[in-house]
């Protein structure tokens, strides 16, 4: 597991704070692509997913933005009220279920904090030379984050208290085959976009409050290597891969960041806590394999086919 620290915490709109995260040694963070999110395990022990909304050309910091959700489960309250600069945060991922597909033209639709995954997409669209525009709605102008980061001339900003609901139909017009629409925001907004845009031309990301499948544990667990009969203890300070190496058991690995898939190992017993970017959701759920470079155990004991 990678430990990061909060290096900055800035109020970027009413009810929205941006966190800047870095490794304690300032070193390079795992690469990511626009639309990616990270799992952050906060000091409260809860894990939450946040879209990366910073600059991928900066290899040493991540930025996420967190909306205060008074009715939420407490993760956002913790970030707003307790988490401070210098505090540690555990990182999982990044993973991307909302990738930017190539297209000559993009129409980005953001509702509130849903603007976050779209910001790196906008940066990419600029570099790619694509035609793009953004329709960004929120309750009040003051509650809308990152307005100052939107390139002039491309964004239509619609605070509800000034201008009512987003004029989706007129703004989208007819979505042709050269256009892909990206929408992120609350469910009613996504439903409205879905009613207007053919499925093949639309990519959406819902805010989900589902936690990752396995709880993250910080207590030690044991890993039994079935073929060699060795058992190793893995505490929070090391990866499964590292712990196995210390006991002299070698497994071929490469990236050691959960991205390449080289160290994929068959799980014979126990439940892995998947922290990689390689396996699909159904493969995670099957639980019959894991990437020991980043993935851990949800159970006290894992048995691997090694």
């Amino acid at each position, binding site marked *: 597991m990678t430990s990061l620290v909060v290096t900055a915490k800035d109020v970027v709109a009413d009810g929205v704070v941006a966190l800047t995260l870095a490794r304690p040694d300032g070193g390079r963070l795992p*690469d990511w692509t626009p639309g990616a999110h990270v799992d952050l395990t906060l000091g409260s022990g809860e894990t939450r997913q946040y879209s990366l909304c910073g600059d991928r050309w900066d290899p040493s910091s991540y930025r996420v933005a967190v909306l205060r959700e008074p009715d939420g489960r407490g993760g956002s309250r913790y970030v707003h009220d307790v988490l401070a600069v210098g505090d540690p945060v555990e990182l999982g991922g990044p993973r*991307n279920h909302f990738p*930017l597909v190539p297209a000559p033209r993009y129409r980005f639709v953001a509702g509130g904090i849903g603007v976050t995954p779209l910001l790196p997409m906008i940066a990419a669209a600029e570099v790619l030379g694509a035609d793009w525009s953004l329709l960004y709605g929120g309750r009040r102008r003051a509650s809308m984050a990152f307005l100052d980061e939107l390139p002039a001339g491309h964004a239509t900003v619609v605070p509800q208290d000034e201008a009512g609901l987003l004029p989706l139909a007129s703004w989208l017009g007819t979505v042709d085959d050269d256009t*892909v629409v990206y929408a992120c925001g609350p469910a009613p907004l996504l439903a409205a976009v879905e009613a207007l845009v053919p499925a*093949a031309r639309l990519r959406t990301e819902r805010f989900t409050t589902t936690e990752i499948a396995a709880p993250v544990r910080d207590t030690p667990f044991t890993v039994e290597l079935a073929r060699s009969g060795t058992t190793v203890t893995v505490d929070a300070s090391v990866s499964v891969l590292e712990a196995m190496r210390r006991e002299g058991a070698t497994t*071929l690995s490469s990236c050691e960041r959960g991205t390449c898939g080289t160290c994929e190992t068959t799980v014979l017993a126990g439940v892995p806590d998947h922290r990689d970017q390689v396996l699909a959701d159904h493969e995670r759920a099957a639980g019959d394999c894991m990437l020991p470079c980043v993935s851990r155990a949800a159970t006290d004991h894992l048995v691997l086919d*090694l």
Partner: protein
Amino acid sequence: MTAAEPLPVAAPAPDVPVSHVDPFSVDVLTDPLPFQAALRDAGPVQYLAAHDLYAMGRYAEVRAALTDWQRFCSSAGVGLSNFRREEPWRPPSLLLEADPPHHDAPRRVLSAILGPRALRRWRDRWFAAAVEHVDALLGTGGGPVEVDGMTALAEAFPLRVFPDAVGIAREGREHLLPYGEYLFNAFGPHNELVAAGAVEAGEHAAWVNGQCTRATLAAEGFGADIWAAADRGDLTAEQAPLVVRSLLSAGVDTTVHGLGWVLHGMATHPDQWALYRSDDSRRRVCFDEAVRWGSPVQTFFRTAEVDVPVGDTVVPEGSKILLYLGSANHDPRHWDAPERFDLRRDPSGHVGFGFGLHQCVGQHVARLEADALLAALADRVERIEPAGEPVRRANNTMREWASLPLRLHPR
């Protein structure tokens, strides 16, 4: 370029060690280890006057530079040629010769298609094909069989399974190896190796490009998978054929020469073959140890996006930098007795497949091909021994055997 021609030498950065050796001379290409050692000993970076070029040969710096796509870009070409000043000989690769964000979608698509999970559907077929291949080679006589390990095994087996898995036509596959040979030469300077291949390169490239269209590809295979991604909108119809081309460019010769190094390693280290046959746990590292030890892809280049401090000097913006993968894989600062082909070693972290964003997306395919062939050989062959002097072939990028005379002793 011949030694007699005066070479244009730009002023190197201050405080950088300078070498006047041409790393692309046939002598160095066929025996690169002494040059690599000198490069590493000179420092973290050296200026190669022969080509107005910076070079890194130590493991730590090579790996860091491979990872640092922000400062060491690929879109200006990963050969010596600088695409910002020179026209590439072919349309640039959407993977190898691209930076984010252009690189993102093709990489994402290909990573899924060539990932370990997706490859499971080929596993049984390739293992069966390898058994058939080895059985046919050994015959039924029971006595030792002499073969050229390159043509009979290292080339023949990938050509038997990989083009089918991509889904290209049977007709014309003889273009694949010379196409790759030229492509890897073309990453180097315009020397006699490039000149010799240039005559027929257009013909090979035309054939390869012709294989990449939807109409010519089989209904099942990596090629069809790439076009299916285009149908889903994950790629454009313009990108799809170039992504297929990447498979045919990077997926054949590299595996062939990786296998060449495994076979050479086994023939010259009989104890390692015995270990491979007797200890299952060593099988997983075998191909990677050969890729580390032989480093079939020796070099790739990057271009400095900004002034980059390295060691006591600064590599100036716009400079070409040679990242010597083969040298990093033999750096004694990182590896214990790197010159030894040793299955007891953990070769994890070698840079023979590159590292970072551009790390070989087909590495799992290559491993599976190697696993299949080696498992079939292990079942039937007790001993592999040299049956003559192996012959090297010079290539500007690859460290290759042209011929590996071997004697296979059936058990």
